[in-house]
């Protein structure tokens, strides 16, 4: 009896194999409306980390196709985009609007208030009142200027096309090329797979560059030596995920970093030594597929996030409960 049971069991197993073959051959059909090659991000966009910032009402500029934002400590907000620059006060009221010719990809403020505007392949300097000061020559035919940063006398231009940071004096004279691969000086070079390549100047006057393909921020001396770096590739909240991140960053007055990512849209705060501090806004705060979340430090600890998908400046303040 026992043998018979075992035999029946074995035959059933064999018939299960045959039935599976027949089912797979004749009955299993791919679902019509489902793309089998679709890279589902739904699960990856879910996070357990609670944001430590609260969002205020967004600022809605008149300018369309906004690309970059900058702020200063007196509360003024500078926005650039297609065909113009807009200056708002802290409440979002427009103070000034002036047209520019072409497409501004980035902007920054010099300590004296001069606006440095990156225009895809060249740089323009404008006064806050809307008068053009100078137009520099195109950097290179393959250039894709994605970020500018400035000190009192120097202007740094990040070129995603050439994967290099140029150092200019304020008159547009090239002083140095920073970040070129140099094994002797132990500079690994920038890996920039997509047109997001940000630079920033810390309150101490240090140059920081987002090496997105290596998922880290790198600090360079003014002569182009690599001093230090932080950041790691990780799906965890502490790291940077996707093909190349952080896409943008800004440095707060206390030396902390605010970073933004594309793919899984996140805005986070890191300490000056690169330790994760807080989540400002998670993926649920943004439209899926939003990229180019430019950042600026506003007055009173506010973080300004340029949302190109909604054409708004999103304003986040530290949550008092935290």
């Amino acid at each position: 009896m026992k043998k018979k049971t075992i035999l029946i069991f074995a035959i059933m197993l064999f018939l299960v194999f045959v039935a599976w073959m027949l089912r797979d051959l004749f009955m299993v059909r791919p679902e019509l409306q489902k793309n089998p090659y679709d890279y589902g991000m739904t699960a990856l966009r879910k996070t357990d980390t609670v944001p430590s910032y609260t969002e205020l009402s967004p600022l809605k500029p008149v300018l369309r196709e906004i690309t970059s934002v900058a702020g200063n400590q007196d509360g003024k907000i500078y926005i650039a985009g297609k065909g113009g620059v807009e200056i708002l006060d802290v409440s979002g009221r427009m103070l000034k609007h002036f047209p520019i010719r072409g497409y501004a990809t980035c902007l920054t403020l010099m300590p004296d208030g001069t606006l440095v505007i990156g225009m895809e392949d060249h740089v323009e300097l404008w006064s806050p009142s809307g008068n053009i000061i100078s137009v520099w020559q195109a950097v290179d035919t393959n250039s894709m200027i994605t970020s500018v940063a400035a000190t009192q006398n120097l202007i740094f231009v990040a070129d995603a096309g050439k994967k290099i940071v140029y150092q200019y004096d304020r008159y547009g004279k090239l002083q140095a090329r920073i970040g070129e691969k140099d094994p002797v000086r132990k500079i690994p070079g920038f890996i920039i797979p997509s047109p997001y390549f940000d630079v920033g100047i810390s309150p101490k006057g240090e140059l920081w560059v987002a090496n997105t393909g290596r998922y880290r921020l790198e600090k360079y001396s003014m002569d182009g030596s690599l001093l230090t770096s932080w950041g790691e590739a990780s799906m965890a909240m502490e790291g940077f995920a996707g093909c190349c991140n952080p896409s943008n960053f800004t440095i707060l007055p206390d030396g902390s970093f605010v970073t933004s990512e594309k793919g899984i849209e996140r805005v986070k705060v890191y300490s000056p030594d690169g330790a994760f501090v807080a989540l400002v806004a998670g993926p649920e705060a943004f439209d899926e597929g939003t990229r180019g979340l430019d950042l600026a430090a506003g007055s009173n600890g506010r973080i300004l996030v340029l949302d190109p998908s909604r054409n708004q400046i999103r304003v986040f303040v530290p949550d008092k409960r935290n």
Partner: protein
Amino acid sequence: MRHKTVIVFILLILGIFLPSVMGVQRFPKPEFESGYVEPETQFPVPRAEFLAWMDVAVLLLSLSLATFLVLKKRSRLGVFWLSLFSLAYFGFYRQGCVCSIGAIQNVTLALFSGSYTIPLTVLFFFLVPLVFTLLFGRTFCAAVCPFGAFQDLVAVKPMPMGAWLNAFLGMIPYLYLGLALLFAATATDFIICRYDPFVGIFRMNASFGMFLFAGVLLLSGIFIARPYCRFLCPYGVLLNWLSRFSWKHMNITPAECIQCRLCENACPYDAIDFPQTKKDPAGRRKQVNRLILLALLLPLLVLGGAWTGGLIHSTLSGVNSKVRLARLLQTASVSKDQPEPPEITAFRSSGIAQQQLMAEVATIEHDFLTGSRIFGGFIGLVFGMTLIGLVRTPYRTDYVPNRGTCFSCAKCMDYCPVIKS
């Protein structure tokens, strides 16, 4: 000795995992400097021709050695070691390809498609075991087929199955062969390769489902010796037919059978025919009547099978990718509010006119109608012949291997006490 075995086992395990340890770190990504030229897609180079011919030579040598070990030396141990070699060479080294079983499809496609040319080495893999079987029985199954060797290793507690169960399950290979020929002839799919449970194990790259079901098959193989060979293998059908007419087939006893009955339960594959010496005139008449009835029924079974085949041809043709695409196009044109399936997007971007596809599909459907009728008729014939085989009890005096189902594995020989003088 035991320590050595443990060390060898550990080294083997380490060897398996070594490639993943040596794997290249994913991050950071490769650097793409300006001016980088995307390399052209590389395709794996086909196996060198002399190596393909070496495989044929190994096949010939293995078959010759297997035949020698079974028919001349009567050595089960020799057959066992040769089967382990075949498992290592044709299984794990050659990763189960080319195999004689799958070659059925290549030969069929070459016969029906003008654009497909079969490599000579593949043709040899198909023909050589058939020729050997016609001459010496299924020595290929005994020691050369890696699938058989694999299953032999897990058959630790084989159980005898009744004649009716063997006959019922034994019809599945005919169905499988019929479907494989139909799909190969219509250039639809190579289903023998697609549902090969062992190749995924040899290559360690099967899908989870395939691994799972290969495990299920091997689990059943603990109690049903060689379930794939006996109840699935389509090549086994051809070998079975040819082996029945083999010139020199192995025998259980090297001389005259002494009716000791020691070999009665020796065959794990139920491939020993027992003596039938009773002469019962009344029973004989009854048997003859049944045979006449079945012989009259046979044409009806063939016609019924052909008719049924015609009815299910649409289901069978649904496996063809072009037919499926055409049906998808028709469904999509009805439900326009649904998002377009990626198959249709790919078809539309190919620039091929829908009329051209439909014309091709009409030809394929017609081929399937003809093929399905032949397939159905064939299954009807097999069913009828199986019934006839169960009814007829041929007169025999000795324990003999069933020439059709015997794998010539030589397991029964060890049970025979007769020594050739």
